[in-house]
């Protein structure tokens, strides 16, 4: 007699956290206003260090989404010293958190939203810091840090965030 065979179902390869972060990042572009001089050209999102999964997600997003008429451009910076462009958003993964001071120095006077994912960074140079609350992805907002980069924060974003100063 034959026998019944079956294949084990493989677990999904989706990096769920990166997808959720990408949705958050896209939403931040809706709730934060950049100055006029940042409203032309590409909307540049930089990633400091190695975050392949997030880069992949943001690259996928860039194929279908825009910020008003601006196309997304996703860049990877291996070091804070490489940041010389006009960038709208800089994502600093936990592994690269040691470079935040350097990155912040490079971005001084520029309208760049600094997004991090390291505890305590929101009280330092970060504008938005991803945190985990009861196993869910949330974010802290340091309004003064964001405004310090000449960016306007919508009240709606404040309502959704854990506000820190």
């Amino acid at each position: 007699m034959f026998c019944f065979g079956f294949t084990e179902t493989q677990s999904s390869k989706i990096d769920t956290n990166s997808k959720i972060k990408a949705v958050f990042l896209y939403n931040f572009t809706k709730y934060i206003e950049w100055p006029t001089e940042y409203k032309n050209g590409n909307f540049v999102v930089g990633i400091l260090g190695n975050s392949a999964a997030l880069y992949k997600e943001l690259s996928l997003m860039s194929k279908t989404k825009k910020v008003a008429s601006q196309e997304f451009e996703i860049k990877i910076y291996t070091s804070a010293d490489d940041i010389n462009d006009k960038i709208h958003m800089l994502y600093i993964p936990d592994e690269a958190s040691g470079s935040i001071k350097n990155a912040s120095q490079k971005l001084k006077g520029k309208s760049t939203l600094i997004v991090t994912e390291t505890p305590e960074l929101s009280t330092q140079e970060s504008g938005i810091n991803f945190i985990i609350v009861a196993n869910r992805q949330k974010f802290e907002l340091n309004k003064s840090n964001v405004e310090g980069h000449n960016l306007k924060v919508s009240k709606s974003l404040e309502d959704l965030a854990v506000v820190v100063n």
Partner: protein
Amino acid sequence: MKAQLYILILVVFASLQGLFAQNKLTNAVNALQNSEFVKAQELIDAAIQDTIFKDDLRTWYYRGNIYKELFKQIELEDNRNEYRSIAVSSFKTSYDMDRDSEVAMSNQSNLNYLASTMFNDAVNQLDNKDYTLAIENYEGYKSIIKFIEPGRDFIKEDIQFKLALASSYTMLSEIDTLNLGIYLEKSKLLYEEVLLLDSNNISGNYNMGILYYNQGADIVNNMDYSLDLKELTMIQEDVHVLFSKSLPFMLKAYKMNPNKMETLIGLKGIYYSMNNMEKSDLFKHKIEELENKEIKN
């Protein structure tokens, strides 16, 4: 005188009828032996209508054999199953008449043979995604074996069949995405049945865990990037429920076999998706350890 004539006519008629019936059975057996199965079928079907032979277990035994041969002759025609079904019922009838008769053993082995063909058909039909027929044939196989061995335990076979069926439904859900929900629900029910039969079944636990995990991951994967933050919060709640449901099954599979790579990968993913990086990293290390062990071996 007239009465005597009538009696004589009746006696002659009855004798002729008996002879004719006897011929039908003998001729049916001869036709069977000469591989004239269609002729044998006509003769034997006539014989079972006859009061002289319908209570003779040999009539049913030969009928079973004739229909078994007809079944074997045909591979794809629709009436193949009908032939097999008649063969089965005939052998059963013969066997029921006397379980110690000279043909009892042969009835049993023929029933076993026919049951095995139903089992094989079920396997093939599952491969060909004919789920309804696969279930029918598998149940048919069980029904025959139960008839021969009333106390027979089918737990192992049931588990294998249900796992195979559930796995097919899951694969189908990936192709026929419009009916994804229906197929996943069918898979889930089957895994539940497997775990009711054996709560320690590794594949049942693993697949149930993966099913919930993948459902959550698919929801996240299908989110639009422009999804509102309030909706994102709600979705995070929904997927967290699915990941939480997945976890105990996957942990059970891990407990039953700590070296199964798929389970380690699953647990790493579940904990990662639940933002429990410490535990996700723990299973990442276990995967690396296992990979290193496999390389050394």
